[in-house]
């Protein structure tokens, strides 16, 4: 792989009303291209992805007035899409299928005066026919399914609600340092424990935000990257893992995830080990996913993700900074673009007050569906041969 991220665009994000997802997407691409010191005329590849509104599609080309593209697709692996788009873009520029590829995600589920839960529930399509309807009448939905996963982890390994709360508290401390974050007021473990139940064992403060907005990155070949406006962020490693859990005896649902394969592949491609990773940006739709991903990536033994976070390692000042912008729990929720955007800022050294001193190797996760899809990206301000 010989690709680098050279542009980053993040729109206004959070409770920003009255704009459509395609509008946010176009805005994000323009910002990312400008950030790179390029113009839209330089873009010859575009990869787009939608959230709940499902209306960011290949027509974004016309909205942006892009001519003669050589690469154009809408991609969907849910929370793993950002990593999947980056992999596709990196391969394309490495092999000459395109020179400058913009990858964008945008969503606009929130409306003024409506809660996050209502915003998501109102856009959910319920399966009411055939086998998938059985989950609906059992009382399942995505949050409930994550509660089932978390409960299995707790029953098997002894993970506690307080340990999940430690994830939320640590990330809120990071968010306090991030001007882009929506929730910056300090959070205590007691407040986490006192927050209402959504689906026990998950409290409200175990669940991510819901945000309107968009984010884009621009990818080009590493040799071209050196002449552009921003310090290049090299793509050193990529991986995916889609476990296809059987709904039957022997399933690892809740215990191990696609992160195990995806992380090992990405670290292997990058030629680094977990001990070389300076910053970790993990997909945190729920506090539990941080815990299980830390384990599956190998930053701690299986079952010890909860105690690892509770010991303070991932918080500001800890040995392994995790979700340094506050993540999806306290920062902003742009699916896989939340961890990826923060990773680019950290790798560049442009993360302001929250910048970690060592940022030679930055690892990023994406998680989609109910732990069904995982992607990993390893980034660095250095080319592969110069890392370590």
């Amino acid at each position, binding site marked *: 792989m010989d690709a680098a991220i050279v542009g980053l665009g993040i729109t206004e994000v959070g409770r920003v009303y009255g704009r459509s997802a395609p509008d946010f997407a176009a805005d994000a691409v323009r910002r990312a291209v400008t950030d790179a010191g390029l113009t839209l005329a330089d873009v010859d590849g575009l990869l787009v992805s939608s959230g709940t509104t499902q209306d960011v599609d290949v027509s974004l080309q016309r909205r942006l007035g892009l001519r003669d593209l050589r690469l154009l697709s809408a991609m969907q692996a849910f929370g793993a899409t950002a990593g999947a788009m980056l992999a596709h873009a990196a391969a394309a520029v490495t092999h000459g299928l395109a020179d400058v590829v913009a990858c964008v995600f945008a969503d606009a589920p929130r409306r003024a005066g409506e809660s996050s839960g209502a915003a998501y529930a109102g856009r959910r399509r319920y399966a009411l026919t055939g086998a998938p309807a059985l*989950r609906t009448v059992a*009382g399942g939905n995505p949050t409930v399914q994550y509660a089932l996963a978390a409960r299995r982890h707790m029953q098997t390994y002894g993970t506690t609600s307080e340990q999940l709360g430690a994830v939320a508290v640590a990330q809120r401390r990071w968010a306090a340092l991030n001007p882009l974050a929506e929730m910056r007021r300090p959070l205590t473990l007691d407040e986490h424990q006192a927050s209402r139940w959504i*689906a026990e064992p998950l409290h409200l403060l175990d669940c991510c935000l819901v945000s309107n907005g968009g984010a884009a990155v621009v990818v080009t070949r590493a040799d071209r990257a050196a002449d552009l406006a921003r310090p290049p962020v090299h793509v050193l490693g990529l991986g995916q893992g889609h476990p296809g859990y059987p*709904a039957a005896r022997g399933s690892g649902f809740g215990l191990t995830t696609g992160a195990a394969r995806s992380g090992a592949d990405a670290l292997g491609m990058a030629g680094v080990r977990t001990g070389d990773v300076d910053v970790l940006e993990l997909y945190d739709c729920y506090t539990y996913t941080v815990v299980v991903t830390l384990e599956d990536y190998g930053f701690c033994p299986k079952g010890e993700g909860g105690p690892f976070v509770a010991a303070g390692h991932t918080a500001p000042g800890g040995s392994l900074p995790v979700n340094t912008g506050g993540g999806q729990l306290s920062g902003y929720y742009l699916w896989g673009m939340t961890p990826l955007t923060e990773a680019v800022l950290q790798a560049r050294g442009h993360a302001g007050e929250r910048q970690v001193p060592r940022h030679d190797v930055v690892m990023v996760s994406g998680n989609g569906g109910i732990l069904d899809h995982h992607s990993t990206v390893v980034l660095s301000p250095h080319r592969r041969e110069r890392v370590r």
Partner: protein
Amino acid sequence: MTTPGPPIEADAATAPFFAAAARDELLLLRCKGCGAWHPPEVTTCCGPLEWVAAAGRGIVVTWALVHTAPHPDFADAVPFRTAIVELTEGPWLQVRLTAAGEPAAGSPVRITFAHPAEGASYPVGVLEGP
């Protein structure tokens, strides 16, 4: 007592499953090739799949106590428990637990059936004593 949740219906693939549920009978899929049991959503194995009566017994794999209605038609039913049950035959089935009682991993469950006024009958779970 009214049954909470939205009305659902069978599709062509699951018509035998829901017809059996209306008779208080649980069917699962079994492969004529290798004999493996599968949950209702599976469509492919090494051989043809056939619907076969299951014991209707299992154990709790994991559960959640649902406080925020996952569908508007559950608004009057919260909180309630939902559980993934590992049936004796091996497949997992997610069901609403209809009786009170705190489950644990491994708690025995008996499958019974809900017969809502509207829509298809479907399986629910009852925790059994230790």
